[in-house]
């Protein structure tokens, strides 16, 4: 069972890391979408004014129970410091001067971030599948009595 636990904690670490990058990219995509709407005249407010609305989630709804453990707000080790594609994307300071970027360039950045987000979301789903299988095995052992909770204390 220790092996299962260490595999599950790897999933948890991957979840924290992937969820962080996913949200950082989703935020950038939503800001780009807003700026593109501003350029086409659909939107008249400034980015700063509309910021809370841009960053909010589409639908509401949560997977976890409010009583489940508090989620870690630790940032991944590398956050923005590595040489991976995602690190380069996050360290690009394009958000700071969005109004000065050409529309074609805005679209190009948006498309490349969107591809990256889809890949990360897919990896994240795969991590949840693995996490669910491992946890399913752990809970089965408790149900069948081959694992005992008293050992843990």
């Amino acid at each position, binding site marked *: 069972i220790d092996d299962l636990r260490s595999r599950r904690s790897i999933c948890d670490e991957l979840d924290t890391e992937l969820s962080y990058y996913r949200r950082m990219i989703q935020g950038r995509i939503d800001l780009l979408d807003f700026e593109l709407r501003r350029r086409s005249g659909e939107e008249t407010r400034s980015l700063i004014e509309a910021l809370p609305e841009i960053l909010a989630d589409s639908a509401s709804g949560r997977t976890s129970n409010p009583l489940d453990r508090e989620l870690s707000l630790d940032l991944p080790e590398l956050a923005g410091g590595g040489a991976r594609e995602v690190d380069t994307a996050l*360290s690009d300071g394009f958000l700071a001067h969005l109004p000065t970027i050409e529309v074609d360039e805005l679209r190009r950045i948006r498309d490349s971030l969107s591809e990256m987000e889809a890949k990360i979301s897919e990896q994240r789903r795969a991590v949840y599948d693995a996490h669910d299988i491992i946890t399913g095995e752990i809970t089965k052992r408790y149900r069948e009595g081959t694992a005992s909770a008293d050992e843990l204390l």
Partner: protein
Amino acid sequence: RDQAIHDLWIEYKDSGDERAREGLILHYSPLVKFVAGRVGSGLPRNVDQNDLVSFGTFGLIDAVDKFEPERGFKFETYAVNRIEGAILDEMRALDWVPRSVRSRVREIQRTMAELEHRLQRTPTEEEVADAMGVPPDTLRTHLGEIANLGFVALDELLNASEKGSGSISDIIPDLTAVDPSGSFEKEETRYLLADSINRLPDRERLVLTLYYYEGLTLSEIGGVLNVTESRVCQIHTKAVMSLRNRFIE
């Protein structure tokens, strides 16, 4: 790339340039989405996520204004703390824990402490309900209501009476991360906690052990015990309350 952001910090901190300030706020703004989503998942379900993002945005703006780049710390870590702080401060200011639930928690805790004293063991739900003069189902509904407030509120509610005595969630996460250089104090607390959990009734002991030491979610624990998730929440809330009483004594 990084140079451009670095220059913005210098521009804003040296001359207070408003455009540089807005540029920094926008550059770091996705952090608000990350923090608001994660803090939100520990709050009651009826809390509007859009409000959390608004509170968090103020926290970010405050962080940009107060950050001192020359001290060499990473802005992201500082900002995440301030965004979380801004969200929780606003929630407290809105008094998100209804007064009726606050007084109910105190009443249940007081009744449990009195019974523990008299019986020299943890009282059952039936005994607590009896002492409160309500049917057991009513007590269970109250425990469920308290559980629905979520992790963040439960921690605060249970610690409200004696500030600074260390919350349950501070004690437990430390214990499960094995600490080779383990200080005697931690070993001592670890032992006390395991001993207190051991003296709980079977079902409560199992829920707390699977929750804090095995890291299962409440619905997964429901699968082990063959009960509903909401029943697990009720058992968890009662168990944490009796644990709390033991720790204070």
